[in-house]
């Protein structure tokens, strides 16, 4: 996967600094960064898909809730996300098609257990060179 993010390292936990040419690319890249941290994505085959939506009060809140929904696919349903297709996106709502594989311990490696997406120092902003976001995870 082309690195569209870098890791942020904190004493107790860590997060991601994600980039995207526009808001859709940013939200898609954030989703992929989350699962790139969790697992080896190369072996995933997009065996199935589902649709998810998330809402938020502003871009930051939306980013948190979006990543929460995605993380629940793993923590709650044991699904590993391979790719996402953003169907619609505004500052208050996102809807996307998610391609995933059900987790198989013999086939998939779990690199990092991400336990939660936090509000800590959350940032989503746009500038002349594109969009970027910082999100800290609890691990």
């Amino acid at each position: 996967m082309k690195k569209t993010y870098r890791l942020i390292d904190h004493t107790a936990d860590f997060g991601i600094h994600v980039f995207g040419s526009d808001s859709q690319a940013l939200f898609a890249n954030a989703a992929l960064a989350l699962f790139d941290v969790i697992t080896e994505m190369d072996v995933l085959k997009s065996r199935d898909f589902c649709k998810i939506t998330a809402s938020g009060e502003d871009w930051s809140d939306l980013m948190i809730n979006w990543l929460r929904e995605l993380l629940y696919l793993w923590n709650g349903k044991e699904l590993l996300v391979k790719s996402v297709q953003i169907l619609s996106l505004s500052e208050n709502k996102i809807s996307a098609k998610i391609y995933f594989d059900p987790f198989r311990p013999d086939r998939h490696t779990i690199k990092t257990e991400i336990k939660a997406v936090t509000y800590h120092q959350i940032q989503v902003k746009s500038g002349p060179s594109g969009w970027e976001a910082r999100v800290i995870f609890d691990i």
Partner: protein
Amino acid sequence: MGGQSYIRYLIAIFFPKCYYVVYNKIIDGVPKMTINVKKIDKYRWEVPKTGAMRVPGIIYATESMLRGSSQNEPLKQVANVATLPGILKASLAMPDMHWGYGFPIGGVAAFDWESGVISPGGVGYDINCGVRLAGTSLIEKDIRPKLKELVDALFRDIPSGVGSTGSINLSIPEVKKVLKNGSRWAVSQGLGDTSDLDFTEEGGCMENADPDVVSPRALERGKKQLGTLGSGNHFLEIGVVETIYEPEAARVFGLFEGQVTLMLHSGSRGLGYQICDDSLAFMSKHVKKLGFDLPDRQLACAMIQSKEGMKYYNAMACAANYAWANRQILMHRSRDVFLRVLGMGPRDLGMNLLYDVCHNIAKKETHLIDGKKQTVCVHRKGATRSFPPGHSALCSEYQQTGQPVIIPGDMGTASYVLVGTQKAMEETFGSTCHGAGRVLSRKAAKKASKGRSINRELEDKGIVIRWTGRSTLAEEMPDAYKDVSQVVEVVHGAGISKKVARLRPIGVVKG
């Protein structure tokens, strides 16, 4: 030297022992801020009340612990907590303080039950993360020949690691029974003795738990994880009592030198995380309606006396109860492993619960404020209750001694048993430290472990270790943590708990 630096320089010259000025750097675009810390005595430091702070901050630490950039952020968090409505006396931090979400880890804050707030950030994601310690009738040489076999069997039989699921599969109605009854549910299933409940904080059950306010997602996550250790810093540890400091308290606790002990550290698993996450989501919306500015979104809170506040408090109690049931089951299963591997009967093994404490919780308690009894909501986030002799919350066996406080260290050094004191009631809302506290980030720990075999280093010390996660061992290596002995010296020296015994690990299972 700029003007500000010059003033700091003068302060440092004229008040070398009185003022310790911490320089905060610009971190992730957050504005530069300087937190001044004023010395009260050898073990206590005050963050003076400034700006929006309603009360001062008080940190239990030595001067050297406050040095270094890793303390900048948690000090700011202590000050942030002091701005929340209804906070009483002071925003407190224990010597194992480190950076957390919203509240620092090692933070203690009490809010007036009628006019104060409750905050999921003041409890943490892993609600009722806690420690339980059991004594045995054995000494080290009784188990040394079978130690590897014992640790292997514990590793095999106690599910651990990322997203571990157990042999207990519950229906949703049964999960709700666990949430309502806590340890009592486990005992009712034959997974423990009724007497274990007396030796569990809160009897292993918070009565206000209301499973009907818990989300379907949280219930779903709770179905398969009961009786599992989890990952990260959670562990199961066979130890040996190395030193006794307070013979009388040790005798009452059933501890003696050379004795084999079993300690386990776990929490409410995915269910607790989901409850915290769900609560943060609705509280971050709700808090905007209250009309006060939060210095940090992760401090989202609600008035205790509100629908939202009570919803969190009652859901949190569910997670707390799940965690107590979980630790009860983990101990029961571990005891079975001991009996089987050592080939002895329960009487010869003599494994009895010494105590179970939680260190991530918010509780309704009565404390003296300015000489008057007041009902408060004490948030302990990475802090342990430390109730004194004679407190009504303690079982009859511990009325003379005070509450056992169990402090796990890192996996290579030591753990401690302390006892609660009256001074803790007077100064810290009956609270003390909870562990060693991280000093290295996980990435930094991995870097520091490069070229070393942590496993072999521990084996050289006579510690048998089994682990699940591929980077767990490096991330959790002893160097990643503060020296637990220094942390314990502070709370002992400050008098908010007293040393009873020191345990040294000989066998460890890490998730």
